[in-house]
């Protein structure tokens, strides 16, 4: 299982990175989403897939009956998912705002902070 | 406390979804449903709704039957090596006029064989229905008229 998952993770990363390299901010955002999923899968895989039964203890028992999936990575991923989603939401709104304020969705043209036409520093004393 | 029916339904739904049949939970459900229905946009009604439980049951049964049927029809249609299709949209003049009746009708039509309600005209008198087999629109109109629409009218008047 880990092998297949590693492969998938690799593919997710490839797709995510390729999209993030785009000029268009929306595609960058899509890339970020893929990247995030890749990371979640990665952490999950890193915790190994020992068993496929959910780590839930039945009403009666005090211990899970037999082996369960590794709960710790799941907890970590849950934290990470929520965090990355709030980041994603922020970025989305930021992109929208940038489009409104800067009039473009092409990051190559967002040149207010570092303008295209900069003067060299003053040379005199 | 106008639409106690809605509140009852909501409460039942609540209990069902929470899945705990305890008195406090039920009460909580009631409270929530009251709140919800008070938030809901109140719609004007001409006549007080008359409920005929038996008829409603009939309607429900008919509906379930039709649903199964439609599922089967679709299955047969798509699994046939070559589908003969004569789809189209026909206008259906409604007798029902109250919003919830129209809604109900539209939804039922959508879930029943070969038909799919697309839109309601602005004057809320005509229903546009898409049919997979639109070879004979009048036949289809008739089916609806004697089928669901009549049942609805019986059920709620």
């Amino acid at each position: 299982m880990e092998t297949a998952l590693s492969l998938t993770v690799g593919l997710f990363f490839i797709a995510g990175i390729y999209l993030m390299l785009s000029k268009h901010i929306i595609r960058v955002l899509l890339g970020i989403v893929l990247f995030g999923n890749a990371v979640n899968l990665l952490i999950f895989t890193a915790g190994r897939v020992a068993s496929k039964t959910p780590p839930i203890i039945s009403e009666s028992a005090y211990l899970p009956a037999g082996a369960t999936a590794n709960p710790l990575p799941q907890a970590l991923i849950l934290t990470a998912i929520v965090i990355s989603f709030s980041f994603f939401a922020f970025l989305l709104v930021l992109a929208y705002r940038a489009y409104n304020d800067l009039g473009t969705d092409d990051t190559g043209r967002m040149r207010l902070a570092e303008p295209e036409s900069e003067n060299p520093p003053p040379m005199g004393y | 406390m106008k639409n106690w029916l809605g509140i009852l339904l909501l409460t039942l739904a609540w209990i069902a979804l929470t899945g705990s049949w305890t008195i406090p939970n039920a009460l909580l459900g009631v409270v929530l449903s009251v709140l919800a229905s008070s938030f809901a946009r109140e719609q004007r009604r001409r006549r007080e709704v008359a409920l005929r439980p038996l008829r409603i049951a009939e309607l429900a049964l008919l509906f379930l039957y039709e649903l199964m049927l439609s599922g089967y029809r679709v299955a047969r249609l798509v699994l046939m090596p070559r589908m003969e299709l004569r789809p189209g949209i026909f206008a259906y003049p409604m007798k029902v006029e109250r919003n919830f009746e129209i809604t109900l009708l539209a939804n039922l039509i959508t879930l029943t064989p070969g038909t799919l309600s697309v839109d309601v005209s602005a004057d809320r008198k005509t229903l546009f229905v898409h049919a997979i087999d639109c070879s004979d629109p009048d036949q289809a109109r008739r089916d609806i008229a004697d089928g669901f629409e009549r049942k609805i009218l019986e059920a709620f008047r």
Partner: protein
Amino acid sequence: MIDALQSTLAAILILLGSVFALTASIGLIRLPDFYTRMHAASKAGTLGSCVMLIALAVYTDDLAMTTRALGGVAFFLLTAPVSAHLLAKAAHASGLKLWSGSVADDYATGQGRDKMAGTDVQ
């Protein structure tokens, strides 16, 4: 005994449901235009998921779970047509043409576009 019955029934329902789902998706592929596909999805698709949820309701001994599953079924039966209806309306409004083989479009001819802003019905 009861268990066996439950299991068998659940199994049958499951198979039934999955078949419905399959047919729906096949229809989604095979049917020629959006509206016809919508028939497949909105009917067989909904049916499939509902049947399988019912199977779940039948199978479990946990009353809460049963009611929940059934509630879910009711929910789907309510929402599926609404969403289908909305989608169809939207598609038509956005000028999505019917399949060339369609026989009639009263909608286009009849009280056409101008009424498009008509009241939503839910």
